[in-house]
């Protein structure tokens, strides 16, 4: 366990599945050679196979404290990094040319089963689950590495791979029950989400959080009693880890999704939940029942015109309040650097 722990809360009621976070991360961290197929941030439709395909059946994590075997995900289960015939389609002169991925018809990719979801019309439903490395309090990846190449930082609990010590053995990839480790076949090293460490150290939010147009992703230290994370996780108890039964103690938490009620055969609303509670329990554990009750009660209170600190926090009218102490703009940091360096100081 680290001295302090940064954490993220993701509000599933607000995520629109736009993948801005995915692309923000891709552009910032995984655009180099060997990283083409890596998605340190994914957003997949639930219910669904997820990314990589069927990851919840790949094992890893712990049961009653005992390490569980896991299997390696294949690149094809994440989706191969396709190349497209842009040149031919856009500039080739053939008006009938269409964009095609290299290597024949693909049959899987991240969020491949987009919006398929579950349930029967008119009671069908789906929502999105954005995922990154959970920077777990008990990282299965770290415990599985025979080389001690994975470490958890004392000052913020961020879990990192020391690539100088990594030999590409990938026990971490098997052991991580969330399948949040990627293998770089060019360098022969394993790589993963850094929680945007260089940004966070400067007080700037992670790229996935800051670029999210849905104001979905809260940030902060778990022990910061005035921050949004502490409020949502400990005070209101509405933010829950995904698959707590994997026993790695994730530090990414989710506000579970509310949904309109089911309709009966005549099209009238019923008392029944649209999203089966058993399904949500399979994702977030038994505590999801109470979390949803709290959310419903606070929502109703707000509707009646009563104050609700919880709803105010979740609505996040002031955008940067989402990020706790990590509320600086990358632009400010750039300006500060230039001033400290004594160059161009007056030009700011």
């Amino acid at each position, binding site marked *: 366990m680290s001295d302090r722990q940064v954490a993220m809360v993701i509000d599933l009621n607000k995520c629109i599945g736009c993948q801005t976070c995915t692309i923000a991360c891709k552009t910032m961290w995984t655009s180099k050679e060997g990283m083409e197929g890596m998605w340190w941030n994914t957003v997949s439709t639930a219910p669904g196979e997820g990314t990589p395909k069927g990851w919840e059946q790949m094992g890893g994590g712990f049961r009653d404290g005992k*390490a569980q075997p896991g299997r390696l995900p294949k690149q094809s289960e994440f989706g191969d990094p396709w190349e497209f015939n842009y040149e031919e389609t856009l500039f080739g002169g053939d008006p009938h040319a269409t964009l095609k991925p290299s290597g024949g018809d693909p049959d899987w990719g991240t969020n491949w089963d987009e919006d398929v979801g579950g349930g029967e019309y008119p009671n069908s439903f789906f929502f999105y689950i954005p995922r990154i490395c959970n920077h777990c309090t008990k990282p299965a990846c770290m415990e599985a590495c025979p080389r001690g190449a994975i470490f958890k930082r004392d000052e913020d609990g961020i879990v990192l791979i020391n690539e100088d010590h990594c030999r590409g053995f990938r*026990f971490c990839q098997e052991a991580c029950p969330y399948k949040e480790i990627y293998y770089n076949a060019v360098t022969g090293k394993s790589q993963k989400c850094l929680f945007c460490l260089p940004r966070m150290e400067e007080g700037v939010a992670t790229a996935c959080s800051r670029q999210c147009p849905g104001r979905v992703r809260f940030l902060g230290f778990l022990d910061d009693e005035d921050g949004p994370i502490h409020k949502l996780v400990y005070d209101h108890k509405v933010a829950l880890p995904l698959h707590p039964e994997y026993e790695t103690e994730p530090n990414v938490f989710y506000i579970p999704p509310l949904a309109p009620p089911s309709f009966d055969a005549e099209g009238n609303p019923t008392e029944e939940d649209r999203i089966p509670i058993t399904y949500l329990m399979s994702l977030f554990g038994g505590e999801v029942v109470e979390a949803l009750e709290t959310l419903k009660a606070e929502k109703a209170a707000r509707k009646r015109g009563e104050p609700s600190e919880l709803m105010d926090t979740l609505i996040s009218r002031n955008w940067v309040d989402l990020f706790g102490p990590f509320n600086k703009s990358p632009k400010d940091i750039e300006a500060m650097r230039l001033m400290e360096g004594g160059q161009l100081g007056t030009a700011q």
Partner: protein
Amino acid sequence: MQSLKVTDISGFLDPVARPWNGIAAERVDMMPSPLGLQPNDYIIASWEERPYGELEVLSAASVHDGQRIAVRLVWEKDKPSAGAGEGFPDAAAIAFPVRGDPLLMQMGSADAPIHALQWRARGNETRSVNAEGIGSSKPGPDVAAAGKGGWSGGNWHVVMTRNLAVPQGGAVLVSGHATRIGFAVWNGHNEERAGIKAVSLDWIDLELEA
């Protein structure tokens, strides 16, 4: 086993070079590295019901020229695993005690370290590594490690070479003196890596012909 003295080692750098035909090879019995000695619970849990280290025998031969030593290993493998893309590479290692009386199975200890050369089919490269216990291997001293492997007819043929003389921290080899040598082989197709490997039952005496 004996490392025969030759006048020029350059004819032995290729694992299928003809001069190797004239060098007697030793049959080395191999076994799976003990599961209980694996460095963490995850590795033990994930391999307790999975066979590994199934190679039963390895053939080893050696020559030196007073400056450099070459060790040639031959073992059966129905098809090679180069470790391209997502695959794991076939690999082999030769180990020497640095000082004291290190346990080969435990990859030595702080008081009795091990110095090894490891060849991997991925990139066909050989590196020098030091170990002071399981899971502790780190880059070893510069002994001008080199190696080359080739697969043909259902066998890997690999030669690893290094200087006899070493800087601090390595295993010194001296012409006319005896030391000990240990072996390891990894089957890439079976996802063998790190401590999941076949190892020689124990050290084997190695005498460098004067």
